């Protein structure tokens, strides 16, 4: 995420300073490529650029690239077509396309999950730094809103994915964090106050590479809130969610 922002920032700066510089160019190697009026497959093809023609690549939106031909025609080309073009050394052009190969080389993941924490609906967001192909560090924030209390969980954890080369792959998680429990306003007369406890936990989950740039995850977590009372509080959590990767 940070990397993306930095890149975006640099791009914005560079576009100001080198506005006159020419956009990068590629040469069409197939018989032709089709230019659409918009960045989606449903937009009509309005122009066809021929083999051998050089086109400038202006920008991208998801898997679509905006190009300008020599005759000044601007249109959107899909990534698969641009992958069939050549650079000035007559080498094929390659891009990050969110494929499973790219997924295995990812650095960061960002995602959100919905779930149930002790029969209470919960929402989580998380960010993951993929350190090696097996090990990743994750920070997540969960909010679980029940009839009696509001719980906020901040949880730092490490995951181990034993078979990263599988599209459906199991992983385990170990982590620690804090849980903050705030009683609902209509129960304040009960005398309970907001309390914060340390939390340790373990989880087991499965991730599935579903589509371009898109991963689905399902996970079960067993958490232990270290309370100041006689007994610690055990919590169970089920989560289902998605992640995008960079």
């Amino acid at each position, binding site marked *: 995420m940070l990397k993306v922002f930095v890149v975006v920032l640099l791009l914005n700066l560079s576009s100001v300073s080198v506005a006159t510089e020419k956009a990068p160019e590629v040469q069409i190697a197939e018989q032709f490529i089709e230019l659409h009026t918009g960045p989606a497959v449903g937009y009509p093809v309005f122009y066809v650029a021929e083999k051998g023609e050089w086109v400038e690549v202006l920008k*991208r939106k998801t898997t679509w690239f905006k190009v300008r031909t020599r005759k000044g025609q601007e249109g959107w080309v899909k990534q698969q077509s641009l992958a069939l073009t050549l650079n000035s050394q007559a080498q094929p052009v390659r891009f990050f396309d969110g494929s499973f190969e790219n997924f295995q080389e990812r650095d960061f993941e960002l995602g959100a999950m919905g779930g149930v924490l002790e029969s209470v609906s919960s929402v989580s967001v998380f960010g993951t730094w993929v350190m090696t192909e097996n090990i990743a560090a994750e920070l997540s924030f969960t909010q679980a809103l029940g009839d009696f209390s509001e719980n906020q969980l901040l949880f730092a954890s490490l995951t181990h994915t034993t078979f990263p080369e599988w599209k459906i792959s199991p992983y385990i998680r170990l982590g620690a964090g804090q849980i903050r429990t705030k009683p609902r306003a209509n129960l304040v007369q009960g005398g309970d106050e907001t309390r914060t406890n340390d939390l340790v936990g373990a989880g087991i989950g499965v991730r599935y590479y579903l589509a371009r740039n898109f991963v689905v995850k399902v996970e079960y977590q067993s958490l232990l809130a270290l309370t100041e009372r006689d007994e610690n509080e055990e919590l169970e959590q089920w989560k289902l969610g998605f992640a995008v990767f960079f």
Partner: protein
Amino acid sequence: METWVRGLFLIGMFGLISPAISAQEQSEPTTKSVIEPDLERRDINESEIDSEDFEVGLFVGVISIEDFSSDTVVGARLAYHINEDFFVEATYGQAEAGLTSFEILSGGSPFLTEEEREYRYYNLGIGYNLNGEVFLTRDLVFNSATYFTLGAGSTEFGGDDRFTLSLGAGYRLLLTDYFALHFDVRDHIFNSEIIGEEKSTHNIEYGIGATFFF
């Protein structure tokens, strides 16, 4: 007999000429490359290409808070476009609830304090685009998308946070590649017991917004 000889002769001639025709066709591209200008080209580098997959913007509208009249809502939205069809988004909005009909008619003490009337929500969701085009005039054409969203989050209202489901539909009009206008309708559903018994409330919001892609 004579026509038979002539026929044979023609077939022979055609056999000689046709390879010559195809040879001529093949030699054409080589003559083209001779006039190829010698230019210095910038090679493509993925990180240098400006990608516009993120969308950030503000919106303003009206939200009808169930039992608490309607009020102006303002908020911000951040979306990431995964592919041409799907996007994920995070939304934050805030409004201030008015008085219930009962509070107005009875003139009695209010149900909620001023602070409890603050209505704030956040929402994480996924959206699906139906891409399209709008033809304003023959030459003035804008890309657009009708989209549907489904999300979950939290609403802070009446002194509590409540788990909230959000259903929505919207229309995005792209005035340029990177600037869009939005028209949105959303229904925020959460359980509330502020007016006595617990019930599920529908809080319908509609508004306009402007976003930038970066």
